[in-house]
């Protein structure tokens, strides 16, 4: 059952099942409900801590909405099944954690190359390898960006609370559909298991986007063309008699493989990049607090953005002109905004639960005369307000 064209029935079911209001729930559950409101009706996954509650919630709720839950034999099969289902028109999702995310990387590249919309939630846990399996971390920042091989663009979002996770998951689906691309949600084991207030809205408050479909036979013959000049080709779904050919090999606009003509590869891969780079308005999102007059800028993301805000508020109470910049879309990184903010401050602190990952992106956009310092903590325990405040005081 495809939600597109079935909206009245889906709205009736959503209203009947999920009364608007405040609920006390885990971040993982908020992700799952976000997906259900976004129109996700296919989930394929494999159990892994700390993401499993997303699978459990989807397994319980999807059948009520006429959707499909599949538990696959491994993570590789999970993302493979999602891609297959996406080509039939379903909105698809999986959730995993570091090790599973690593296993999915090859097919994430396949999804980027074949322009297959999907949402992949990585509930980050402490690595490398099995690491501290039950503990949260922010160590997959670059796995999301560069985990699969070859030049490829990617969009990745990172929510900062349960409520945020609900809306950001919806946004992830809308971006995936709008740009015909895989979207990663970088969640973490701490927010995933934090129970907090999440307001479930009425379905009318949720905006839904659908992927472009071919308007005529001509468009259907070019599943990898650019008929509208925005870099996003309409998607001729399977089962409609279009005889679509999809391959991860370098392909021409008509989908047929051509790995021998340098220009074909150049044209395809550059368009894939252009599609993501030129459509920043579709996905770029960040939050700012006190950046207007800040002298010390804290740049943080995901779970760490919360103690970072606490620290900035306390610093302000102490008369320190601190500000906070939180990229909500972490890939592609909001570099131009970072560059502008970097020109106005004398010090930048980057707190994150790793040994320095997002700081490398920040570094690309700020001048050498700005003091740039990481505030790094590993071990599975989140940074505290006090720990970040101490660093702010240190550069004040």
């Amino acid at each position: 059952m495809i939600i597109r064209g079935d909206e009245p029935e889906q709205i009736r079911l959503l209203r009947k099942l999920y009364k608007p209001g405040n609920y006390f729930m885990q971040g993982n559950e908020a992700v799952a409900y976000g997906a259900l409101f976004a129109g996700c009706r296919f989930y394929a996954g494999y159990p892994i801590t700390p993401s499993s509650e997303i699978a459990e919630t989807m397994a319980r709720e999807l059948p009520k909405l006429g959707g499909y839950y599949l538990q696959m034999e491994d993570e590789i099969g999970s993302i493979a099944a999602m891609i297959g289902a996406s080509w039939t028109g379903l909105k698809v999702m999986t959730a995993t954690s570091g090790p599973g995310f690593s296993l999915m990387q090859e097919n994430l590249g396949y999804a980027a190359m074949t322009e297959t919309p999907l949402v992949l939630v990585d509930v980050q846990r402490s690595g490398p390898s099995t690491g501290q399996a039950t503990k949260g971390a922010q160590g997959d920042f670059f796995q999301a960006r560069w985990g699969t091989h070859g030049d490829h663009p990617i969009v990745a979002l990172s929510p900062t609370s349960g409520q945020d996770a609900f809306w950001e998951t919806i946004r992830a689906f809308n971006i995936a559909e709008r740009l015909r691309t895989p979207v990663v949600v970088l969640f973490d084991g701490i927010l995933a298991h934090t129970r907090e207030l999440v307001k479930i809205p009425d379905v009318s408050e949720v905006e839904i986007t659908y992927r472009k479909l071919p308007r005529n036979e001509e468009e259907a013959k070019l599943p990898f063309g650019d008929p509208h000049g925005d870099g996003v080709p309409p998607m001729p779904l399977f089962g409609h008699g279009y005889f679509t050919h999809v391959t991860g090999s370098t392909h021409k606009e008509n989908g047929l493989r051509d790995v021998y003509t340098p220009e074909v590869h150049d044209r395809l891969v550059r368009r894939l990049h252009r599609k993501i780079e030129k459509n920043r308005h579709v996905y770029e999102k960040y939050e700012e607090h006190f950046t207007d007059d800040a002298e010390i800028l804290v740049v943080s993301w995901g779970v760490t953005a919360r103690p970072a805000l606490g620290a900035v508020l306390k610093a302000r109470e102490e008369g320190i002109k601190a500000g906070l910049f939180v990229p909500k879309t972490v890939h592609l990184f909001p570099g131009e905004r970072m560059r502008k903010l970097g020109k106005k401050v004398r010090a930048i602190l980057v707190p994150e639960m790793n040994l320095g990952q997002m700081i490398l992106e920040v570094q690309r956009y700020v001048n050498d005369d700005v003091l740039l310092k990481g505030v790094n903590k590993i071990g599975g325990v989140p940074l505290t307000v006090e720990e970040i405040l101490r660093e702010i005081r240190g550069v004040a």
Partner: protein
Amino acid sequence: MAKEIYSTYPMVKYLRKEALPTALCPGCGGGTVLNAFANAVDQLKIDPKDLVVVSGIGCSAWIASPYFLADTLHTTHGRAIAFATGVKVGLPDKKVVVISGDGDLASIGGNHLIHAARRNIDITVILVNNFIYGMTGGQVAPTTPFGAITTTTPYRNIEHPLNVSETVAAAGASYVARWTTAHVYQLIESIKKALTVKGFSLVEVISQCPVQFGRRNRMKEPAEMLRWFLKNSVPISKARKMSPEELEGKFVIGEFVSRERPEFTEELNKLIDEVQEQFGLKEV
């Protein structure tokens, strides 16, 4: 050019002419498999619009993709069946067919093969077993016969091959058959059955790769390999009365299983109905 070459071949109507000629080597068994598949589709009068063909990586993944004119999904190495699983769930009324090789489906993709059979999802798999990794230059595969010479077993293969059909039958498939490229009519009949049966079906086709396998094992001519298949083929009814020692080096051919078992997408949709009923979600 392609048009002239293929104009007398009746099955060309099922092929993407702009993609021809095929990339297969002269003497490859892949053409026989494509021909058998096209004939099965033709005899069953299946509209190609109702077909989705999925393949993985390797020579045998090229047999139908991109050549067969249907929706074709050419996936990553080993994952064709998992991709096909998603396609079938989304399009339960279409026929979803995987055509790929032994290395792709039984080695790197072996896990998906076993579990798709266990789920008994209505996918037809044509597994072309040429005993070798052909595209990468003739390396040993988990299907390579004991003692055979390959580029990575230059002295002899010390491993014993996986019995793919027996494995898939044991895992729970509705239908399993094995033939060789020397048994074309039986092969067409089995593909037809596989396409018709509800549930997971596997047709294993023992196929010749004279370039990468035969050449290094004293059978450099395709015909020599076909004669080898014929000489060593044993019908399954006869094989059941033979000892493992007697069956060493033989190709057991025929139907391994043909049975009715609950099918996955039907069960999945039945479950959705039940849950919607249970929670009072059906529209009155």
